[in-house]
């Protein structure tokens, strides 16, 4: 890491960025360009193209103080505000098509400004369900993750990782990466629907068949990715956690990820290359999301994000 940046902002000292920092977004400064992930409202009446997945109903992100009834305000890791993603209190069974509102997303839309061979995402974050009932409910969170929606003149890829926490109430607690299984067709990807137009490999957060053991058509378990994260003894106590993943974009291959102090090698895993879409060469959109496993809202708090390249 270049030492000059530590002099600019002590908040960066808890990060390990590559040579060029594209963004350092501390949500104490506002939303920093992170917004709701929505479909394209390009049809008559500003409607979106019909799909088996209703992408217009995800829970919107918000600037949060992480406040609870009997704890009061947590604030964020080095300030008061984090970016909170909150699902709606609805979930289908793991193997079924995700319900409208069962996820929350946030995305920042940027584009490539220089040639680079490595791309890295880092964030400090916390997660918990809404404390709307008694007990400890770690198992209410199904999954969360971070990725880049990335396109160069040859192909488009979703590049990132997710933490599969729970499948229908059973804790799984392991890291997976965006890598589509072999032989998956576009129709498979859209759960066999005849109305679906999605292309296999794009938007694995909600597309791709899901299997009872936690696998999906779009996510691959990472060897050595089993990890119990620091989840406190009550749903109203949050701990800030560190996540990093590093990608070789020239080879379109993962290099490694880090969760807390655990570094997991990822050479040999590759994000799926999809046919490029019109007009979006240079797309470099970081995104985060969370999915609930049951009939309650679950929250992902993001204190800050660093995206860097070299």
């Amino acid at each position: 890491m270049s030492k000059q940046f530590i002099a600019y902002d002590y908040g960066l000292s808890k990060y390990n960025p590559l040579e060029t920092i594209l963004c350092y977004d501390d949500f104490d400064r506002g939303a920093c360009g992170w917004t709701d992930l929505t479909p394209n409202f390009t049809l008559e009446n500003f409607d979106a193209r019909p799909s088996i997945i209703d992408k217009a109903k995800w829970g919107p992100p918000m600037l949060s103080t992480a406040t609870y009834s009997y704890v009061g305000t947590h604030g964020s890791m080095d300030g008061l505000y984090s970016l909170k993603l909150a699902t709606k209190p609805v979930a289908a069974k793991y193997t079924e098509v995700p319900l409208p509102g069962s996820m929350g997303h946030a995305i920042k839309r940027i584009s490539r400004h220089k040639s680079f061979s490595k791309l890295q995402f880092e964030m400090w974050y916390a997660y918990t369900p809404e404390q709307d009932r008694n007990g400890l409910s770690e198992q209410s969170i199904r999954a969360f993750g971070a990725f880049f929606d990335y396109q160069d003149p040859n192909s488009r890829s979703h590049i990132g990782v997710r933490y599969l926490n729970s499948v229908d109430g059973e804790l799984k607690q392991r890291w997976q990466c965006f890598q589509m299984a072999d032989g998956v067709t576009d129709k498979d990807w859209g759960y066999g629907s005849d109305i679906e137009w999605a292309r296999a490999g794009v938007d694995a957060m909600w597309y791709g068949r899901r299997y009872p053991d936690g696998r999906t058509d779009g996510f691959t378990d990472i060897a050595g990715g089993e990890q119990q994260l620091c989840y406190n003894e009550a749903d109203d106590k949050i701990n800030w956690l560190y996540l990093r993943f590093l990608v070789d974009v020239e080879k379109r291959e993962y290099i490694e990820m880090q969760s807390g102090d655990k570094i997991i090698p990822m050479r040999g895993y590759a994000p799926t290359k999809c046919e490029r879409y019109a007009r979006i060469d240079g797309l470099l959109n970081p995104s985060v999301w969370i999915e609930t496993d049951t009939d309650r809202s679950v929250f992902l708090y993001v204190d800050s994000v660093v995206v860097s390249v070299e």
Partner: protein
Amino acid sequence: MRQFQTTVTERKLNFQGEFTTHPYEAGWASEAISFIRVEDVSGEAARLEAFVQISVDGVRWVDEGTVFQKISEKGDYFVRVSHFGGYLRLRGAATGDDANFKLTIWWVLKE
């Protein structure tokens, strides 16, 4: 420069009977406007009522006192709110025979 945020909490969603909107945190804002757009309405004598609610924790809610005029036609409607603490939402009710309101609902927030 003052902080500003427009957020869509419900987007082209159909409402029948009683409902509440997605809870929204706005502790940083000192003023808020709730906009309701009636995209479509159907049913006999269909009426929509909507009330601003606040909360200490985002789980238990109380009426704040601000109320929308009764709504029965397509169009955009708003109310202003201030001094609301940390959490905001609306509760509402669509009444009338087979009443259905297709709504988009925003918070427009300013520091």
